[in-house]
Each structure stands twice: as structure tokens, then as C-alpha cells.
């Protein structure tokens, strides 16, 4: 028993020494931890601004799609010109949704980097654009689903009181939609954060790429990769906790 424990102590001690050395090599030497710090910074910048762009695009696309669907007949009967404009806008939105949701985000990112924005050197901006445009399609469908899930009677009650379609949306429908879609929206942001990990494909130094650079320098895969995974996990866990809090708060105010 005593001998076993002595052996264990020696082994554990050796393991710990080894761990310390690799940690030193991967993160402390040459200030290599800065690759992770800067990488995380870029990952967060890209996520936040792509999310904002995605939400803006999503609102626009969802508005066009639902406005057209809900008012097709009235526009055709009462305002031909508006009907034609909206039909074109609706078709553009549908094509956007199909293309974005039908192709991999990495390919979209590469198209943005190597073709559309080939002359730009601001790689973070390119990533924000690519991920924002991608996220916009998913956000649009979240909003659209939220609007379409509101009982048509709510629209009719608003219209019969004399509210225009847009004021019905503003006063009656949207407040209900926001409550319903907020959790899904935050989940989309979490998904977006993880998706940005492919940014390294176009030599953007995000968190994943930061870990990869360290691996290239130190030839040790385990420690940098586990550390990168750990950092993503912590951010996601914090965000998920936030979603849960929001969900609970919405439940409380629900009647």
C-alpha cells in the first residue's frame, strides 16, 4: 500500500512536471498565449458584428417575405405598382434564402474573400460580411416563423380597428413575436460563434487559427487544441446560461 502510493506520487509528480513544461512551451514561451487572446478578440468581434448584420438583414428579409404573403391579395386588388415591386423584392429574398442555406458557409466565406472582396485586405471585415450575410438567412427564417405563428385573428383584429398593416405589425404583432423568437435568436448567435471557427480558411487569425499557429510552432497538438476548445466551451456555456435566463424571464411575464 505504502509502496503503491510512493509510486503513484512519483508518477503524478512526473506527469505534473511534464504538464508544466508543455504549458510553459505552448503558452508562456515567446508570449504564445497572445495568439489565443488576439484570436479570441477577433472571434468575438466577427461574431458580434456578423450577428448585428445578420439580424438587420434577417429583419429586412422577413419583413419583405411576410408583408408580401400577408398582403398579396390586397396589393393586387388595390395597388398594382406596389404589388409588382413587392413581388420582385420577395423573389430576390427567396433566392437569397435558397442560395445561402443551400451552400456551405466555408464556401461562401472563400467566395467573399477570393472573389467579391479580393481587393480588400481587411480580413475581419470580410469575415463579418460573409458570416453576417450567412446568418441573415437563418435569422430571417426565425423571424418569419415567429410572425407566421401569430394567429391571423390578431392581424384581423388590428386591421378591423383601423390600423394599417404596418401599425398592426408594430403595435400588436411584433411585441408578441419578439417574445417568441428571442431564445431562438440567441441560439443562432451561439451557432454563429462556433461557425466562425472556419475563418482560418482565409487566413483570418481567429481563436481556432491562434491555437493552430501555436501547434505549428511547438509541434504539440494536445495542449493548444484542448485550450481552444475550452475557451469556446466557456463562452458558449456563459451564453447558454444567458439564454436560459432570458427564457425564464419571458416565461414569468407570460400570461
Amino acid at each position, binding site marked *: 500500500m505504502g509502496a503503491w502510493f510512493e509510486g503513484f506520487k512519483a508518477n503524478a509528480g512526473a506527469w505534473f512536471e511534464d504538464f508544466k513544461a508543455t504549458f510553459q512551451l505552448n503558452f508562456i514561451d515567446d508570449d504564445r498565449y497572445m495568439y489565443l487572446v488576439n484570436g479570441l478578440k477577433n472571434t468575438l468581434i466577427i461574431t458580434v458584428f456578423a450577428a448585428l448584420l445578420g439580424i438587420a438583414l434577417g429583419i429586412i428579409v422577413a419583413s419583405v417575405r411576410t408583408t408580401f404573403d400577408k398582403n398579396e391579395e390586397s396589393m393586387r386588388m388595390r395597388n398594382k405598382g406596389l404589388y409588382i415591386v413587392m413581388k420582385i423584392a420577395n423573389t430576390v429574398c427567396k433566392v437569397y434564402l435558397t442560395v445561402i442555406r443551400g451552400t456551405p458557409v466555408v464556401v461562401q466565406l472563400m467566395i467573399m474573400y477570393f472573389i467579391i472582396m479580393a481587393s480588400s485586405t481587411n480580413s475581419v471585415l470580410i469575415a463579418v460580411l460573409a458570416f453576417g450575410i450567412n446568418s441573415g438567412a437563418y435569422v430571417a427564417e426565425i423571424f418569419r416563423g415567429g410572425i407566421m405563428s401569430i394567429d391571423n*385573428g390578431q392581424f384581423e*383584429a388590428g386591421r378591423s*380597428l*383601423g390600423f394599417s398593416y404596418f401599425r398592426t405589425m408594430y403595435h*400588436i404583432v411584433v411585441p408578441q413575436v419578439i417574445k417568441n423568437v428571442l431564445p431562438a435568436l440567441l441560439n443562432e448567435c451561439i451557432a454563429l460563434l462556433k461557425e466562425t471557427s472556419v475563418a482560418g480558411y482565409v487566413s483570418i487569425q481567429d481563436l481556432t487559427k491562434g491555437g493552430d499557429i501555436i501547434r505549428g510552432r511547438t509541434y504539440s497538438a494536445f495542449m493548444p487544441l484542448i485550450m481552444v476548445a475550452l475557451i469556446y466551451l466557456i463562452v458558449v456555456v456563459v451564453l447558454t446560461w444567458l439564454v436560459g435566463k432570458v427564457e425564464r424571464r419571458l416565461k414569468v411575464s407570460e*400570461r
Partner: protein
Amino acid sequence: MNDNVLIKVEGLKKHYKGGAIKALDGIDMEIRQGEVVVIIGPSGSGKSTFLRSLNLLEYPTEGHIYIDGADITNPKVNLNRHRQKMGMVFQHFNLFPHMTILGNMTLAPIKLLKMPKKEAEQMAMELLERVGLGDRAAAYPGQLSGGQKQRIAIVRALCMKPEVLLFDEPTSALDPEMVGEVLDVMKELAKDGMTMVVVTHEMGFAREVGSRVVFMADGMVVEENDPQTLFTNPQSPRLQDFLAKVL
């Protein structure tokens, strides 16, 4: 009763699926101020479609609807302005679940009639008292019974001071014991001279309150008369058949 025509319907048609379904197949009607027009008829006869056409929740395929002399089927007419004058009460209440009862009632008068909040709330409270729900002003729709919801829906429409109220089967979604309280409110309104168009299966109400009963079938008005004559001396076989089933 005076002869002021409030609503005039001319050759109203509503077709679906390119004419395969003729929900309304040529309807002419005049509704005068203070009248209570009760519309009855078998399921699918076009009662709802007709009522919903009156404030253009359905767009007619053909025909004209004049409100106060203005043709609302004309695209140039300000539809929202006309809808303000026509209150609507739905089978499923359609109260706004995220607002209190008071919020439900004051939203439109404050936003559309630019009524000061104080004044709107005072008016709403008076109406609530009248339908016996003065103590529920701060409640949310989800906390009310069906009968209470429908009474709220009626006074919500009244808050816009409409010239006419349209009812589409206002008691059909209610438990039987709650039908009476809603019909009572409607009777009160009729007594006060409110112009009403009511689609209902409540023949007792039609008989007691209706100034005119319209029987529809297959998207057409088959027969119309004062309730006494219509119920005791129906002319068309369709109506005789219908009354034999429901009475």
C-alpha cells in the same frame, strides 16, 4: 328608425380558385342606421365571407360596397379610415394577449383617434362598468373566461365609437352557460340604437332583437324579412328546410 342608408352593397361576388368556388354570388343589400340585421344560413353559405367583405377583410371579386356613400372597393378610398367606423367582433375574440384589458381597449383610440390617454381610459372604464367587468381592467385576456373575453371584445370595438358593429358568430365558441351574458350585452346595444350586422345561429336572438333577418344559401340571399314573418311564414323551400332543422 330613419332611412339613413349606412351600408349599401351592390352585386357583391367573391370567388375562390378562379371561380370554382363561389362563396358570394351576387348580393345586394342596404343597411340603414339603427337596424339590427341578422344573417342566418347553413354552413358554407357565405355568411362569414359576406360579413368580412363589409370591412374588406375579404376583397370582393366583383361588386361595390358603399359606406356613408363612399365606395370602399375603390382603391383610392382610405380603407383604414372607413374601418375605424366599423367595429368587428370575432368568433374567437382576438384580444391582444400581451396587453391588459385596459390596454386592449385604449390602444386604438389613443393611436388612431389621438384621444388623450386619461380620456381613453376613462371611457374604457365606463364601458367596462356597463358590461360588469369594471374590476378586470388590469387583468390579461388569458385570465378571463370566454364570455368575459367576448364582452371585452365588444367594448373594445365600441371604444372607437363605430357607426356599425359586425358580429361573426360571437357566441359559437362559448360554453353554453356563457352565451347569455354576451347576448345580453348585444341586446343592450341594439336597444341603444347601435347599427348591427350579426351572423349567428341563435334563432332566439334573431327573433327577439333582429329588425330584419336575412337567409343566405349558396352565396346568395334567398329570403329576407322581419323576424316574425320570416320564422312563421317562410316562403322558399330552402328556408323551410333550414328552419325545420334548427328550430
